[in-house]
């Protein structure tokens, strides 16, 4: 992985803090590793390690029932695991924000990641979740900030895809 921690991960963290996010469920990915460490280090944030991504869809909805903001972190391979649980989000009009690190695209060695990568955007859109994509570091902070505002001010549903070009190819 990249030797230097990219500042865009800190930009995501800063956006979480500014927006008052309190719960961060995740299935880990190397692309989110620094952000997850920062979430664990902050006493005002509750990290929730999950066994599968759909758990985080449900826990985000439970947090909102209790008036708290929650953002789900996952990698693209987990998006398909969420499909039916997203009917909870859509049917009850829950706010929903997930930040997805992309695997299986730019410079990928592991072809097993490719099918779900190709289906990631479609999977969200077919369940009523808007997709935004970040390809360059300077886009990340403003995009997360804008999405947080839309999602929690008016219960919108957004997935932000962090492209593999942004994250960097995995070194095997």
């Amino acid at each position, binding site marked *: 992985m990249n030797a230097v921690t990219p500042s865009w991960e800190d930009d995501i963290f800063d956006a979480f803090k500014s927006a008052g996010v309190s719960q961060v469920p995740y299935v880990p990915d190397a692309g989110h590793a620094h952000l997850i460490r920062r979430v664990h280090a902050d006493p005002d944030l509750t990290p*929730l390690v999950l066994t599968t991504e759909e*758990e985080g869809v449900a826990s985000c909805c439970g947090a909102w029932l209790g008036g708290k903001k929650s953002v789900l972190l996952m990698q693209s391979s987990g998006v398909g695991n969420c499909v039916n649980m997203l009917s909870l989000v859509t*049917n009850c*009009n829950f706010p929903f924000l997930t930040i997805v690190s992309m695997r299986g695209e730019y410079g990928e060695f592991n072809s097993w990641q490719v099918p779900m990568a190709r289906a990631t955007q479609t999977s969200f859109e077919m369940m009523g979740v808007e997709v935004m994509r970040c390809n360059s570091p300077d886009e990340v902070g403003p995009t997360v900030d804008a999405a947080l505002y839309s999602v929690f001010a*008016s219960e919108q549903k957004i997935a932000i895809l962090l492209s593999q070009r942004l994250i960097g190819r995995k070194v095997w």
Partner: protein
Amino acid sequence: MGKTVTIERRKAVEHLVRDRGDMLVVCGLGSSTYDVFAAGDHDANFYLWGAMGGAVMIGLGLAIAEPDKQVMVITGDGEALMGVGALASVAAQKPDNLSIVVLDNGHFGETGMQQSHTSYGVDLADIASGCGFTNTQTIYDYDTLDAFRNMPNEPSGPRLAVVKITTDNPPRALPHVDGIYVKTRFRQFLGHAPC
């Protein structure tokens, strides 16, 4: 094994929710949702009509968000089994205010009473115990059920009760299917304004 199952599902749920105060209730899709509604509609009930496997995790997000309130997830064996990994995720958080009640008749009641895994020996209380729950019980009588419901907050983490119920199949009691309404009134119960 070998204990006689006499608890009826509707009566069990009546015992769980009577004099509930401000306890928050999340119910799994199917019969558990009907049972909770049949015991009396309440603004602090979150009824699921879908999202199978999600009840425990909704309860977890809610319990962390509302640490000063008791949260009870009332679900069935089939719904709990679909989201069984959630027991590991709950155990990783150890919320003191979360109780999970599995109404276990060993069958998928909504789809034709096919046998579930618990009929083949899978023990959800043992699974929860293996995940790290320090308070798990398998309940066969109403007195034990009442004691579980009335147990005060424990600092030892979440609780799970498997309540062995008969396979009686009372008529459906259908709560609001409008999820937006149910969500909004639940939030208003807790003082959160609609968007």
